């Protein structure tokens, strides 16, 4: 169940092993990225900090726990694709699911408040329950979530093209952006925005603008040497 998709009864089990019942969800087509609202969530892994912005102004700041080194929280530019509650005995009371393509990750509460401020999860972002309830009530489906930190290691495929997804696509997106090409959100998915950026890179270097990344483009972006 990658990509944060729920099962038939609207239930989701995240990478931390907790289960939530979804009461709001959206079919994800991240290739059609449209700004839903002016809200933004940033998670700075280095500082174990989640910040919520509205209309460009910081509204709330919360401490969080992030993934262990062996199960890191995925760096990238995601969005909230579902929201849910846990109707159990009060642990992990709220869920905000993210559209990371290689696992089920989200922002949720915890019954281990001592883990906040540490690298303790299996990749999800944990918050104190009172904080996640507050955030849950502020955040809408489609809100961008930027997780800031070191990019995950990636085995770069020799050819990257439309429909590809994964950490190597994420590296490609950041490398293009560093060179001044607009890739849209760096969401680890090879969609139309990334294809256009690749075509422009190819034009810049005098290559045929196929929109397909080969070893030539990976070399020119200094992704391999």
């Amino acid at each position, binding site marked *: 169940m990658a990509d944060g998709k729920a099962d038939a009864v609207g239930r989701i089990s995240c990478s931390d092993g907790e289960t939530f019942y979804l009461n709001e969800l959206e079919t994800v087509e991240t290739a059609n990225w449209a700004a839903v609202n002016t809200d933004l969530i940033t998670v700075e892994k280095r500082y174990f900090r989640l910040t919520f912005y509205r209309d460009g102004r910081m509204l709330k700041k919360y401490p969080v726990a992030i993934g262990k080194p062996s199960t890191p929280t995925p760096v990238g530019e995601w969005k909230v694709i579902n929201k849910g509650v846990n109707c159990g005995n009060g642990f992990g009371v709220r869920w905000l699911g993210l559209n990371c393509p290689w696992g089920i990750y989200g922002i949720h509460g915890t019954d281990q408040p001592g883990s906040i401020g540490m690298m303790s999860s299996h990749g999800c972002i944990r918050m104190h329950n009172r904080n996640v309830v507050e955030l849950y009530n502020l955040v809408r489906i489609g809100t961008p979530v930027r997780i800031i930190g070191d990019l995950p290691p990636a085995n770069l495929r020799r050819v990257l093209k439309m429909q590809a997804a994964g950490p190597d696509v994420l590296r490609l997106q950041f490398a293009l952006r560093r060179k*001044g090409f607009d890739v849209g959100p760096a969401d680890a998915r090879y969609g139309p925005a990334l294809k256009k950026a690749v075509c*422009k890179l190819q034009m*810049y270097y*005098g290559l045929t603008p196929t929109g397909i990344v*080969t*070893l030539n483009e990976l070399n020119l972006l*200094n992704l391999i040497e």
Partner: protein
Amino acid sequence: MAFLGALCGISFYFTYHYAQPFQKLKIKGRELRIKPNAAVDPSRRYRITLWDYDWPLAGDNYRKYLQAQIAGFNQSYPNITVNLRLLDLLTGPAELAAALRRGAPPDVYCSALNTPGFDFKYQVPVGPYLTPPVRKECCFPGIARLTELDGVQCYFPRWARPELWVGNRRLLERAGLEITGIRARGWNWNDILKLRPQITDENYLAVGKVIPEGILQKVWSQAQMTDTVGAEWGLLQKIRDAKGVPSDGGPQMIDYFCSGRAALLAGVKPVIWRYLRERLARTGAAWEAVILPAPAWSKAKTAPPVELGVISVYRRPRLGGDEQVAAAVKLGEYLSRCGGDRAPWVELMVIPAARVAAAEWARQSGIGESILKILEPGLVGGNWCLPLPEQERLGRISAALQQYLSGKRSQAETVRYLRTTAAGE
């Protein structure tokens, strides 16, 4: 009577001159009328729309460069307001085409790396507006010729991006090929074949756009008509026998060259040469990547394709008239000189059309004026770059021939393939 006769003559002269101000031009069999002696009236205000492209330079530098250019232009023409619009690199040509169809082109259009077809309805050929000294200053002679149709300069040239070959200096000199001599006198594929004994079986002579476009076209045309092969296959056979080219030399050409597995990198742009130079310096390579002219294919000299950035001037219907066109020409001429900060041209590694700017670019880019001289014949004899679908078609034909050159297909199989498949994929 004599006085009356003189008066009639003078009256006739003024009537003729000012009632018949148009100059007639014939381009591609079609007649155009322009008024090159229209002048910008300093007491009038003009509004010029300028379209250019949003080049991905760091820090929005291209927009800043253009704004600085416009500010410099306004120092001479404070009565001309320039409205700038930056187009997307991919969709810009289609936007211009749509604007021309609607009858709403910009006054001045700066292309990216291709030359838009001449629009007989709205476009104004700029040559007649220029005086010879201005033409000499703003037009790099070799590039300027590429902007002419039937001897009439139709566009302002702005920059050019020729193709070049890059060589591994160490391998070339080991084979007895002298770089200075190649640059001065040119070379051909027989010279390249001399490299073969100097490199191991795992290495190759060349990767990239090894076969010139003209030869690709010829080979494909012959394959459509007959199963027999033409004269070009003689040299192709020699390259095949010398194991000259790998089968996957297209998508991996940079890898092959940087690792020293190919002695030559064929048909790349100056910006890739700069990348190679920086990478070899960064990795501490013991050899140097040197710029070379394209080799001749057997006895014929081949002119590499040149991408050209040009400036077009259009007459906007119901707006401004001949003075508006004159104002637009002034702006186009100013922009074509590539004045001010040279940084965009250095970063893009495109050769400015103006002589003075090109010399300065050669110094700042690290290419050097001597290399600029090598590139000049290519600029004089080069062809306008082909449209994208044609480039892609030739790419497929080139890939098919490289399969032959690497030994993966026989000659007969390749000809059959070219006949039935390559063009239609």
